[in-house]
């Protein structure tokens, strides 16, 4: 819902107040919930699942007093379809879940992508497949960036590594959703969701966002009826629609790549890791640098679009890459593809832990040292 001037002024005042605030101690999940409120979220729908239940619990307490909607749906499927309806009615809207629940939402996400509806989906990942474990993992990378649901759609996927980023990227998800009329996915592991850190909430940025004149809010006697829809039976019409969507994805790939580079310039070996694995790898790089090893870190923040531009300066000379993930090797495929696209034949190796096991910095440092001494054969 586009706020009217009065509300806008009010929220700007609140933002200024927020900006003046000192850092506050927040849990990852709570920071996401609070950032969503500060993004002007109108409605939130979800179903409980560990390890993200802190988000609905926080919002159950803080959202209704603002006159906003909190609904605990009867299932994840129901929740994502409430998101569809609310987004279609022009609301700023979010749902959150954890891996098995995100699987349940996939049909709805595909419909949302097809119908071009802006919304935010949060996946606080846990170990799988199946019911798996409640401990954090990164096993949903493929599901997150390669569609997940049917029909070949894409959506921005952002992966925080700190509680501060949980807050910042939640707000960015809302912005990108409205900017591109797309679902957006915030993707973090369960450990980060449960981690406490200091956060400073940033002011909300609504600059340049398009109006939602397509929303189904009743014709009000002033316009032609609107339709929120994902069914396009005629192949040529659907092809044209899909081409439009894919042109939008191409624009995201051009405009919305995000990553963090740390000590990569002179690095002989670059670790590539996202989210919590990236954060742990950061500690490992710091330790290795102290021993004189030329190691750096490239941490993708946007998983889609994948930050090929982050690799571009690195590809100018021969290096070695080590991809570290909390899964059996998923993002490593995109790293290899990216280097191939950059006509870079540097060796890429992989190290991963699975099932909710978190690698230690020492463990990663050990793998790096082995790479150096053994030549890092693929």
């Amino acid at each position: 819902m586009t706020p009217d001037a009065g509300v806008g002024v009010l929220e700007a005042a609140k933002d200024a107040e927020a900006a003046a605030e000192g850092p506050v101690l927040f849990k990852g999940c709570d920071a996401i919930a609070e950032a969503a409120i500060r993004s002007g979220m109108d409605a939130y729908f979800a179903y409980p699942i560990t390890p993200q239940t802190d988000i609905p619990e926080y919002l159950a307490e803080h959202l209704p007093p603002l006159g906003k909607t909190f609904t605990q749906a009867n299932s994840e499927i129901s929740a994502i379809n409430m998101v569809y309806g609310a987004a279609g009615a022009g609301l700023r809207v979010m749902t959150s879940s954890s891996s098995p629940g995100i699987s349940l939402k996939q049909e709805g996400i595909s419909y949302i992508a097809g119908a071009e509806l802006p919304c935010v989906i949060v996946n606080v990942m846990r170990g799988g497949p199946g019911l798996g474990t409640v401990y954090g993992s990164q096993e949903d990378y493929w599901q997150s960036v390669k569609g997940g649901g049917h029909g070949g759609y894409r959506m921005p996927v952002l992966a925080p590594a700190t509680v501060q980023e949980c807050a910042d990227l939640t707000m960015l998800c809302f912005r990108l959703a409205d900017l591109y009329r797309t679902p957006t996915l915030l993707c973090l592991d369960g450990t980060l969701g449960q981690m406490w850190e200091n956060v400073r909430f940033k002011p909300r940025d609504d600059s340049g966002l398009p109006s939602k004149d397509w929303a189904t809010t009743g014709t009000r006697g002033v316009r032609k009826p609107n339709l929120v829809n994902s069914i396009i039976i005629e192949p040529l019409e659907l092809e044209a629609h899909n081409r439009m969507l894919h042109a939008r994805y191409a624009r995201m790939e051009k405009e919305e790549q995000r990553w963090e580079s740390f000590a990569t310039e002179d690095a002989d070996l670059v670790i590539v890791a996202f989210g919590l694995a990236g954060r742990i790898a950061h500690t490992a790089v710091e330790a290795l640098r102290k021993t004189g090893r030329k190691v750096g870190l490239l941490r993708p923040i946007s998983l889609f679009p994948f930050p090929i531009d982050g690799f571009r300066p690195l590809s100018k000379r021969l290096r070695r890459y080590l991809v570290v993930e909390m899964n059996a090797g998923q993002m490593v495929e995109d790293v290899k593809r990216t280097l191939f696209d950059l006509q870079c034949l540097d060796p890429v190796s992989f190290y991963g832990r699975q099932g909710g096991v978190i690698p230690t910095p020492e463990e990663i440092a050990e793998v790096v040292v082995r790479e150096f001494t053994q030549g890092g054969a693929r």
Partner: protein
Amino acid sequence: MTAPATTEKILPRVEFDSVECKGCGLCIEACPEHIVEFAQVFNHRGVHPTRLMEDTLAKCTACGNCAVVCPDGAVTVENLRKHLRYGKNRLRCGEMHYCPGCDEGTVHELLAEVIDELGIRDVTVGVASVGCTVFAYRYIDIDWQQAAHGRATSVAWGIECQHPELRVFTLQGDGDLAGIGIGETFHAAARGDPTVIIFLNNAIYGMTGGQLAPTTMMGQKTTTSPTGRNRQVHGYPVTMTEALALQQGCSFAVRATVHDAPAIRKTKKYIRQAFLNQEKNKSLSVLEIVSSCPSGWKLEPIDAHKYLVQEMLSVYKPGVIKEPPGGMPR
């Protein structure tokens, strides 16, 4: 100038649109004066369109039954004496994809009429979910959202949760509402969402070509119950409206049918009451409409209505199942 003699009859205006007509013949069956017939010629659809028999206009009582039962709005009757008009409502648009004799077109007309007569067109949002009703957005000129199979009531709640001024209704089939979406439907009743559910129960999956539905009758043959529904293989039919009526958040539950003109007129009254109840009680109103699927049932439209009356109405009994607090809305 002399006043017209009181005995002089003012003839009605009757129009049969031979292009729109799909040749189902329901108007022939509905005419109490037996003055409607099939034309000898074919129209562009390859069917004989119906028409008024030659020189019979004087016999026409302008009851409007032929127009009321026409699913495609192809018949217009104007009673010039009483200033009554039966035919396509102005909110209707598009040529319907429904098969000849399909009751869904009739329900579209009733919905359009009620929305128009209540003057709520500007604040009404329809939700059409997967099944034959998914293209409903093409036929009534209001805001629509198309929903995934079974999820209409969840989508409806999303639309209305921050927009209490909107009048949201869902148009759902039996597979959608009583099969894949039973959880969504049930919880809409439990929450007491201010949605109007229009539930078209034709005891079959129409869009996919006539498979067994949750509401298929015992013994009824479908493509996935070729020897008839039996208890061992398929279990029993689901009676959803009674189940929904048991929930506190459902304030109005009624079952109607559309097999003939009087039934259709009654159904329109119920639709109107459902929308009035939505405004008054801000909780769930459900209107089940027992309807036929001639194509899926592999019956002529008139025979399909006979089957509906003989077989379905004993299991899906028409009438008010739950009256709203404070009595029926007016």
